[in-house]
């Protein structure tokens, strides 16, 4: 029996499609529908009301939460971009041996395969009032009293985000840089280009797609986070999703769903904006 190539492909991707439709596509539609539902103490009531959105847009805390989330996203984006670019550049252009390159790359990747919650918690003994960092500062006589702002603060939140998400910047930039033809750089050097000119006019433009992919990943991860901001800020800062998860705990599903819909729209606009600047398809096609 001969089957057509299109049918063969669909048989192969069928299970993937079924799982993603059932557990991702449909649930997203459910969230959209639920954002128009009503609710009382225990149950959600299927109906069509706009109250959830009205409450969301008239509540002044909404804007504050978005400002807070965006602030974290921008700070973390800048830091992960600079660090991720430097690390990727080092691995691609300065490490000559392929074996060492793979080894160092894995060294950066291994923490990604361990628990995010544990990696976040591991900053507590480091940054606490009697923590290692404060001890070091006092031993070096840089401060006389322990710094209080290190743990359970916005600072701690940013540190944890950078710790968790820099890899998402390293990997795509590494991939993009590894594809740069080194002869291009040799030619530029022969033509008298400075190191900075090579970086600015060759490496950076050719790494753009990797930077864009990393940016999409880091920004969506930070904007979608709730547990880091809850634990590391000690409850003092909020984010859009941490407020949303509080609503879920109080079983207020429809307002939470409305908040989720708005955040997804904001994220989609941001991603669309990034894709407008950089054509990522080129990156994924190869």
């Amino acid at each position, binding site marked *: 029996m001969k089957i057509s*190539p299109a049918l063969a492909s*669909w048989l192969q991707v069928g299970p993937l499609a079924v799982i993603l439709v059932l557990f*991702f596509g449909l649930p*997203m539609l459910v969230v959209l529908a639920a954002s128009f539902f009503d609710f009382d103490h225990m149950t959600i009531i299927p109906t069509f009301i706009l109250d959830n959105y009205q409450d969301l847009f008239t509540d002044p805390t909404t804007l504050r939460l978005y400002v807070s989330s965006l602030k974290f996203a921008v700070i973390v984006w800048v830091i992960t971009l600079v660090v991720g670019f430097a690390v990727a550049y080092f691995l691609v252009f300065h490490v000559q041996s392929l074996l060492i390159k793979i080894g160092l790359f894995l060294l950066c990747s291994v923490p990604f395969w*361990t628990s995010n919650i*544990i990696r976040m918690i591991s900053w507590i003994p*480091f940054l606490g009032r009697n923590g*290692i960092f404060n001890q070091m500062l006092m031993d070096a006589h840089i401060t006389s009293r322990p710094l209080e702002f290190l743990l359970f603060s916005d600072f701690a939140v940013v540190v944890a985000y950078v710790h968790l998400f820099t890899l998402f910047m390293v990997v795509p930039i590494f991939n993009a840089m590894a594809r740069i033809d080194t002869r291009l750089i040799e030619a530029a050097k022969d033509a008298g280009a400075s190191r900075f000119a090579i970086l600015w006019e060759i490496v950076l433009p050719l790494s753009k797609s990797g930077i864009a992919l990393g940016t999409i990943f880091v920004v969506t991860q930070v904007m979608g986070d709730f547990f880091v901001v809850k634990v590391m800020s000690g409850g003092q800062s909020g984010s859009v999703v941490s407020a*949303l998860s509080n609503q879920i705990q109080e079983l207020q599903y429809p307002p939470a769903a409305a908040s989720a819909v708005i955040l997804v729209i904001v994220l989609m606009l941001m*991603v669309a904006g990034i894709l407008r600047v950089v054509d990522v398809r080129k990156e994924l096609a190869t």
Partner: protein
Amino acid sequence: MRTASGNRPWTFYALASVFVLFVLFLYGPMIVIYVLSFQGPQGGLTFPMNGFSTQWFHELVVPGRSGDIAGSFRRSVILAAIVTVATVVICVAGGLGFRRRFPGAGVLFYLVIGSLVMPGIFVGLGISIGFQLLGWQTDWTVSGLGAQLTWTLPFGLLVMFAVIGRFNRSFEEAARDLGATAWQRTREVTLPILLPGIIGVALFGFTLSYDEFARTVLTAGSENTLPLEIWAMTTNVTSPALFAVGTVTTVISFAVIGIGLGSIALIQRRRGRGAASH
């Protein structure tokens, strides 16, 4: 980029320092909690070490002391094993399917990317409301499993894309010219060549499931997986037992990573030797 004289430029040393600091930043705090998990009985959450004991590890297995660590650990390992098998089968098939152009490929690809970047808790929220509307109970073996697959499948598929991108199709063509059937080609040529990548997919499947939190928190039902149990501990356990569970779970992760990467390295080495002897 070596200079003509063979000396390394100053940028090498600058970037090497950045790299070393980055690695210290990645591993330093983690190593600290492994050390602190061996605190003495009177020890606290930070240095100095107050003696040395394994008491906090014992505390983990005493029922009721720090929640249901043993039970949640068992559930997490079982779930991760199921997710691994499902991810490997679905992603290998899916990756091979994506080699041809087929109607709907673009839509499916966007579904994959959407699933990857969607904040995890939203996926969990949708599944949980959906189950509620249908009158079903959420359970880690059904809703939890489905929710985790929306996270592991996109990663697995991207790994497959990378692996297949390097795959030389002339091996398959040669097998066809020699009269191999489609099934023989897949089983005896394509899959063995792709094996290291497939182990990579399994590695992603296991570790991402074993540590998954955001998608599982609303879909696990009444019984917790390990990350949910740890999350509960962060709010009510203020003893080094918290670090002890971190040490245990990281040891498991490292063991899985070691087995995965080790077997990939072994296969590559055998291949290198095989190629050299022919």
